[in-house]
Structures are given as C-alpha cells and as structure tokens.
C-alpha cells in the first residue's frame, strides 16, 4: 500500500481519472514485464503443466484418459509414498538439528574473535559446500565401502569389523553424514554473516553491565540472528524433503538398502523414468510440494512470532 503513494505523487496531476489508472498500470507492466515473462515460463508454467499432467493417466495399453483426482487419491493411499515421507521426516528430525547446531557453534566460535587462523577455518569449513553434491557422494561412497573403501582398509589394518555404513540400518545415517558435511559450512556462513552485523554498541553495553560470554550469546547474539536461524531451518527442511542426489548416487553400492522409493523425490523419479508413470509421478510431486510448503510456512510463522 505504501508503495502506491510515491508513484502517485510523481505522476502528473490527473485530468481525467479513468485514463490515469490505465496509464499507470501499463507503465508498471513495462518494468515488470521481462521478469514476469521469465517467471511465468520458468516457474509457473512447469507447475501448471504438472497439475495438468496429474489429472490424466497414460497406460502402456489403452493410451491416455482423463481421471480427475484419481492420481491424488491413489497417492494418499500409497504405502510407498508415506513410507518415503516418513523416512525423510526422520532424516529431518535427526540430521537438521545436528547440522544447524554444529554450524551455529562454529559460527559463534569464529565470531568470538578468540581463534587464530579464523579466515582459514572459515574457508575450510565452507569448502565442502563448493564440492558438487554428486562428487561429494561419490567420495563418501568410496570411503564407506567395506571391501574397497576406507572402512574396509581400517578393518583390514586393525583387524576389526566396523559396522557397514551401507547396510539397511545405517545407510540413512550415512546419508545424513554426507549431507551434514556438505551443508555445515553453508549454514555457518549464514549465521556468521548475521553475527557480524550486530552493532558493537550492544556488546559495549553488555560489558558495562558485566555480562559474561555465555550471557552475551544468549541475550544478544542468538536473538539477533533469529531471522537467520529460521531461514536456515526452512532451507534445511526443504532440502531434506527434496533428498535425491545422495541416495541416487549411493544406490549402485547398496541397491537392497536404498530402494527406488527411498525418498519422495526418488520415488517420483522412479515412477516417471522406470515406470513411465508420468501422471502419477506429477500428482505425488504436487502433494509433496504442498506438504513442504505447509511445513516450511508453519516453521516460518512459529519462528517469527516471538521475535515480533
């Protein structure tokens, strides 16, 4: 609402009210047009197309038919879908707090100004994020190998039998480890940047009041970076729900443990590219998108409420 005020002030005094409204709206589109076109074709069109796809069903025998919301109904009753959603939810509940906790600790440590070689650590910890997820997963995959890999070498060198990181029980944790390794530095950087912009006067005031380091952290630093924490959490939630690369690349090493419906994204991929079930796949993807949106939005509301 406030943005309308200045633009009205800039435009010439109106002679005829209706024409003024027209002119204003078209000039506006001139500015927003290029963006709107890109937005429409790159962001909206795929979504609309997915929705369109999801109300049809193409069979190997019988061709394409309109089925309305059947695909959605099927997805809501699909055990495979719910199992994969449960798996990423578990992943989310365990991996995200660990990752953000580590990232926060490192950010606070770097910000404390008490470390030597601060710049080196900042870059070193951020470095894994610069490694493409595919490469990172391949690398960890080699390390996880119980015969060929690092785990195998340790077993051989020390005559021990470490648990197999790619077994059914451990593979989710192993994936969590890869994701944590990849994204700690990224989240650390978000937190660290947020910490750097806290005005020095606050610290001076705290010092005058005789606050210790812990008190400074809990009373000044954490509240100040709440926004960054919420953003990082939302990114992590979305990331967890979209988990795909890591299981997909590890799969050749652990086909029995990482099933084709391991995560919702992997499930939709398999439906589409192994089963040619593009329509059903689209329906599952849209449901998953909605669930992600709702949860991310809920976290945002919850995270911002107390801060206001």
């Amino acid at each position, binding site marked *: 609402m406030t943005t309308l005020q200045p633009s009205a002030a800039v435009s010439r005094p109106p002679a005829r009210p209706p024409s003024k409204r027209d002119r204003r709206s078209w000039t506006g589109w001139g500015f927003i047009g290029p963006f709107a076109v890109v937005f*429409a074709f790159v962001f909206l069109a795929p979504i*609309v197309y997915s929705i369109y796809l999801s109300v049809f069903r193409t069979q*190997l*025998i*019988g061709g394409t038919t309109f089925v309305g919301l059947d695909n959605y109904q099927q997805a809501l009753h699909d055990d495979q879908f719910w199992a994969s959603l449960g798996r990423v939810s578990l992943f989310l509940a365990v991996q995200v707090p660990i990752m953000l906790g580590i990232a926060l600790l490192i950010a606070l440590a770097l910000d404390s100004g008490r470390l030597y070689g601060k710049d080196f650590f900042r870059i070193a910890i951020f470095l894994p994020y610069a490694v493409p997820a595919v490469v990172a997963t391949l690398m960890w995959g080699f390390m996880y190998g119980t015969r060929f890999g690092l785990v195998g070498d340790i077993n051989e060198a020390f005559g021990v039998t470490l648990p197999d990181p790619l077994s059914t029980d451990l593979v989710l944790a192993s994936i969590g480890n890869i994701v944590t390794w990849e994204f700690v530095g990224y989240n650390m950087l978000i937190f660290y940047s947020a910490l750097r912009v806290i005005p020095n006067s606050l610290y001076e005031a705290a010092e005058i009041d005789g606050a210790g380091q812990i008190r400074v952290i809990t009373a000044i630093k954490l509240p100040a970076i709440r926004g960054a924490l919420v953003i990082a959490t939302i990114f992590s939630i979305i990331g967890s729900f979209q988990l795909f690369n890591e299981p997909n690349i590890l799969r050749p*090493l652990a086909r029995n443990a990482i099933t084709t419906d391991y995560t919702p994204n992997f499930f939709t991929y398999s439906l589409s*590219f192994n089963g*040619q079930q593009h329509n059903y796949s689209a329906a599952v993807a849209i449901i998953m998108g909605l669930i992600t949106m709702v949860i991310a939005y809920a976290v945002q509301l919850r995270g911002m409420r107390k801060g206001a």
Partner: protein
Amino acid sequence: MRRTTRRLMRGLAVLSVLALGATACGGSDDDSADQKPVSAGDIQAALKKGGTVTVWAWEPTLKTVAADFEKKYPKVKINLVGERSGDKHYTALSNAISAEKGVPDIAQVEYFALGQYALTKGLTDLTPFGADKLKAKYTPGPWNAVSEGDKVYGLPMDSGPMALFYNKKVFDKYKVAVPTTWDEYVEAARKLHKADPKVYIAADAGDAGLTTSMLWQAGSRPYQVDGTKVKIDFADAGAKKYTDTWQKLIDEKLVAPIYGWTDDWYKGLGDGTIATLPSGAWMPANFVTGVPKASGDWRAAPLPAWTKGDKASAENGGSSLTVPELAKNKELAYAFVEYANAGDGVQTRIKQGAFPATTAELQSTEFQNTKFDYFGGQEANKIFADSAANVADDWSYLPFQQYANSIFNDTVGKAYISKTKLADALKSWQDASVKYGKEQGFTVE
C-alpha cells in the same frame, strides 16, 4: 493490491490454457499399421542418395563397423552416440520417443527391454524391409527375442549363452573340483569358504538378469505373454529348484554381498575372493578390460546343470539394433542394421571379441578355434557355442520387464539382507509386477 492479484490470476488462467493446448497437440496417435514393402532397390537408392544415420549404442565394436560402412557407402554418415548404457540409455530413449523429438535412427535395445518398446509402438516393424527373411541366419533364442508373431522389431546383434567363468588358480589352490551341477556348486562353495573365509563361490547381492537367467535354465517359465494378456507366476517346479539351491547359498553366506559392476566387484574378480561368475558369452571382453591383472587365472566351463548330464542352458543379456518408429531415415537405418548384424559387420565385430547371434559364424571352425589369451589359451568359444545350441527358446520376458527389473532389489533384495526367504521375495516381486501390469492396462493373472 487486490486488483493485481486478480490480474495475476487471469494471467495464470491464460497460461494454463496455453499449456493445455500445447500438450493436447503433442499427444497425437499416429497409426502406421500398413507399411508398404521396401524393396532392395529402394534401399540401394537410399544408400546412393546418402544421408546421416544417428545410432544410439554402447557396443564398442560398432565404431569399426561404422567406419567400414562409411567407406563402402561414401555418401552415408554414421553418427555414433554411445557410452550411455543401462538405465540412462533407456530413460533417454523413452523420453525422446514420448517427446517425439530427437529420436535416433537406430537404437541398441537389450532383449529384455525390447518388448516394452515394441508394445508401445516405439519401434519399426522391419518385416517390410525384408528382415523376416533373415530368420534362418540366427540362433533361435535371440531371434525369438526380437520377433513377435510375424513382426520383427530388430536384428540380433549379439547373444549371451551362459557359461561358468571360474578362477582356476583358486580352485587349484584349494584342490576343489570345478562343479558340473548346481548341487556340486553349493558343495564347492562350502569347501572354498571353509578353506579361506575370504573366498566366496560367487558375488550375488540380487541381480534381476542373473535370477531370470537361472530360472530360464532351471526350466521355470514365470512369464507367459500373449499380446496384452500376461501371466506371472514364480511358483513352478523350475523356480523351486532355483530357490531351494540359492537359498542354501544365501543362508550359509556363501555368496559375497557385492553388487555387480562396482569397484568391489572388479576387485573381487581380480584378487580371487570371487571364485566363479555365471554369465553370458559376452563377458570375456569385460574381463580383459575390467580385470586385467587376473589374466591367465580365469577359465570358462559349461554352466552347471540342474541334473547331472543335462545340457540345458540359458541366455544372459544380449542386445539388438532396432529402428525407432520415429526414425527419419528408415531405409538407411535398416541398411546399416543389416550390414552390422547380418552382413560383413558380423566378422568385423567377432574379430574384436563380440559374441555373434548368427549360426554360420558360431559354427565356423575359425570362430570355434579362437584361443583366448586371457583364459590361458583356452578355446572358450566352443563352450559358448555349445551353450548357445542348448538354450531353450520358449522363454519370454514381460512386456514391461524394464520396469520389473528396476524394482527387483526393492523386493527380491530383501532375501539377501533379511530373513525373508527367496521364494517369498520372488512372490513379492511377482505381486509388484502384477500390480504394475494391471495399472498399465494389461490383463494379468
């Protein structure tokens, strides 16, 4: 504010109509049932006129074949797009076909996957080009795999009659006899593993290709296909033979839990931890390139029998060259397919280690007397040719085998990592395949 929202909604509506329109145009059903016969003269004319043929294939010997072909027909350019294999190849092919864009003129398709493409009318029936007249040239197994009724959807490129590759060094070291039956195989597995706990008779962590081939050899016929009527049943006597034997190997942990084609697998084949490999006759070339340091250790033997003296064998792998329905230059494409898989190309490919599907080549003395340096000078082709002659030709894959294989480890994989019995695991594979078949409009029993 409110006005902009409404305008945005209107824009969205327009956009969605556009999207609907665009896709509605895309999904046309073209019917090309009645194709005119193409005479040899037509093909010669096309060759004279020239053009470019795009080939999607990973078979390495095709490079030389393409070069020879170009030399023979200077106006034709063969554009080989390769190095993409397995799932990725089929994903790309299916996508191109359903997008009706970028479809190659020739595609390499493995026998197990051919049915799915033939069924969805993705491939050209090559009968009008005269492909049906080549039937007598091929061994029955591969020919059966590329033809359906009086239609021929491709020409067999190679075949994979099975043999047992074994590490002679390991067997000699522990003085274990090379098994000739599957019972002896289990016995050998126990002896070897007892002699050295690091040694396993085989690596198997669940592989759809191996399992279906073993069922094939055991006389099981789990898939009965009649057009769109499909029957899936893993409970016949042949299947029981297989599950009983393999269950012992799994229960006693006699097979190494190593997935095929991984680094662990190559390492195991090289260092003697994997003592045998039941596989197709196309395997030797892979030994040479993938496990170079074990050269001289390995030999080939006939595939163990289910009852002593029985010679029944099965196919494992093998592929054909096909011409997609949407190929632009079908005459030229067919000319190349015939050259590579029935004509001069066959010899070129054999010289480079390919295993043919043509009877004449299989039976030629030159072929049978080939000595394999990798196998210590063994004339392994004799074993393979013998196996090829003993492959039962009444096996059929599912028309959606590609999908079924993709979920093999989701279902049968359980038998390898939990207490689930192999027979039960096969049943859940069956159930999942039946479910998919029904969803896709097949009549499934």
